[in-house]
């Protein structure tokens, strides 16, 4: 049996290597910082024969996702990646992908959105796509990016819903971390070849996304809503089986740290949640019973797992790297409050918006923030 390979790589290269491991067929792409190096790495692997796939250098993100959707409808396994305004430009086609029930997997490398111009990370871009019908993961390490892309393909192809894998620009995308690449035969065991039930096939002419009346349209939308909810057990199963095969675990719908006896719970996504583990340690040294709950899945929102995991009478400190315009604070806090209402009246939710446009979030800064929130 072949051993896993351990290398030092960036987050974007980890994504590209996952695409290779997933034996993807078609990758349409367009450059945008900080995602660009994913496309560069894939283009290079296709050119040098490492990856037997088609790289299509499309002329803009709207067309990128349209090419991805059409290739997926043809029966191919399809990947692409984008960031920030690229993701916003795709918005119409995001709906086409989910409404069309096409299992495209896409990385979004989180970046603050224009205007004014910024290159650095916050989470306005992915959270702004909440209502597009995509399953959304948010990852906190290079290894998790690699692992999650493989899990995303499995879930997407099981339930015919596209999956977005989000991770922060620069803190993850451009930083080197150790990366374990499992043997290909293990990955092939975890992720079987894509065999769609339906595809554009001249032997079986049929129409796809044709005109419907309300009597057909409404059930299509209801099925999509139901199936997004039904993806939660598949997400858990994928994480479990990935662990069984590779020995690696990043959490399933949620990831927790020192949570069991916590009185103060930090609640955040992406790279800041990795840093928050260290903030939790600092707070514990200071005598605060702190813990961490990181939703790995943002959509569908892991309601039951969050409700089950939160300790009795905890104060939850939601650190949002985004704005919920029209409300004070951020989007995660709003989501959390809505699921706790009437179910966990013992929980107190406090919220701050921090780290916008890539402001550095150190363990000490966030530990101090949480202490300050305790006094509010």
């Amino acid at each position, binding site marked *: 049996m072949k051993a896993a390979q351990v290398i030092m790589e960036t987050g974007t290269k980890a994504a590209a290597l996952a695409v290779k491991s997933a034996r993807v*067929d*078609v990758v*349409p792409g367009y450059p945008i910082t900080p995602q660009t190096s994913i496309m560069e790495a894939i283009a290079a692997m296709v050119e040098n024969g490492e990856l*037997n*796939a*088609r790289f*299509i*250098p*499309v*002329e*803009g993100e*709207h*067309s*990128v996702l*349209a*090419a*991805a*959707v*059409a*290739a*997926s*409808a*043809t*029966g*191919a396994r*399809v990947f692409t990646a984008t960031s920030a305004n690229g993701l916003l430009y795709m918005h*119409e*086609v995001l709906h*086409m992908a989910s409404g069309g029930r096409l299992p495209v997997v896409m990385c979004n490398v989180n970046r603050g959105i224009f205007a004014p111009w910024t290159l650095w990370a916050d989470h306005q871009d992915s959270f702004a796509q909440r209502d597009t019908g995509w399953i959304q993961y948010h990852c906190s390490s290079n290894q998790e990016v690699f692992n999650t892309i493989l899990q995303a393909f499995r879930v997407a192809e099981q339930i015919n819903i596209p999956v977005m894998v989000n991770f922060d620009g620069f803190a993850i995308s451009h930083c080197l971390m150790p990366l374990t690449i499992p043997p290909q035969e293990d990955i092939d065991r975890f992720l079987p070849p894509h065999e769609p039930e339906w595809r*554009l*096939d*001249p032997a*079986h*002419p*049929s*129409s*796809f*996304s*044709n*005109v*419907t*009346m309300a009597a*057909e349209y409404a059930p299509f939308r209801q099925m999509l809503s139901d199936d997004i909810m039904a993806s939660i057990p598949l997400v858990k199963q994928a994480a479990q089986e990935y662990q069984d095969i590779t020995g690696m675990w990043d959490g399933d719908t949620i990831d927790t740290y020192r949570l069991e006896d916590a009185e103060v719970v930090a609640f955040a996504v992406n790279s800041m949640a990795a840093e928050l583990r260290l903030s939790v340690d600092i707070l514990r040294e200071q005598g605060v019973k702190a813990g961490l709950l990181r939703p790995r899945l943002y959509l569908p929102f892991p309601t039951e797992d969050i409700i089950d995991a939160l300790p009795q009478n905890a104060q939850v400190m939601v650190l949002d790297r985004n704005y919920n315009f029209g409300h004070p604070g951020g989007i995660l806090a709003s989501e959390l409050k809505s699921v706790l209402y009437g179910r966990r009246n013992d929980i107190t939710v406090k919220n701050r918006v921090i780290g916008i446009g890539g402001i550095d979030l150190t363990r000490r800064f966030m530990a101090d923030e949480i202490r300050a929130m305790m006094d509010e």
Partner: protein
Amino acid sequence: MTTSIKKLPDIELVLSGNGACGGCPATMALRIVGKALGPNAIMLLTPSCSVASMGMTPKLGYNWPCINITFATAGSSSSGITHAVEIMKEKGRLQGELPTVFAWVGDGGTYDIGFQALSAAAERNDNFIFFCYNNEAYSNTGVQRSGATPRGAFTTTTPTGKRQPKKNMAQLMLEHNIPYVATATVAYPGDLYDKVVKAKNTPGMKYIEILAPCYLGWQFDMPDTVQMSRMAVRSGAWLLWEAENGKISFNNPSSLIINGKKGAAPVDEYVMKQGRFNRLLKSPDAASRIAEIQGDINRTIDFMRERAKITI
């Protein structure tokens, strides 16, 4: 020799009972295209008359697998399909002959909202046929102006007649250095058939534009579609040509007009036959505005005659 209409194959890919208007030129043209392509093809459409008329989900009036995709993306989506079938064939997941991939798009989806994606697909020389069925307006939404609407034509968004000339779209596609570009129209079905067969057998990107006189938008009598199409060609308002690897040749009867062997019919008769120019004819400056229309036609004839001389 152009294939005679009597020699076209019997096969029908446009099935009876679809929802097109009587006398619909796009549907007539698609029928000829079907005879040339045969059943081993994948059809891509963007929201337009040909989607509205293909039948309600899950029924289908065209005997191909058909995908209706976002309006702006016929070019890029067709690229996605053609790369997918090619790589799946290479990997042994598709058996038999590669299907022909073709986009069937109106003038709005070609000249306007779809231009960027089409231009980029052409620059990449991706392997599919892009058909533009050009009825010179957004007919499906109730006749609004497009980049293909000729000067002087009334639409609901040009209530006193359009003030600008149309784009020379086929020539723009020619300048993308793609292996095959052609124009056609429904009055010349053999010419259209031959061009589609040629496109089917040419690897790379192919562009075929079909003038599709729409009785609703152009305001003429429903049975006169083919006659309008013929008048457009005879007046020189529509030129039949093709370019293989950048070398232009003109097809009959446009070749006679280009060569000067037969003068184009004056545009008046063609204009008078269509209600969309009615308000123009009633305006005090009717004479000068018809002269403008004639001027646009003459300029395009002169330009294409000269452009055809460039063969490098």
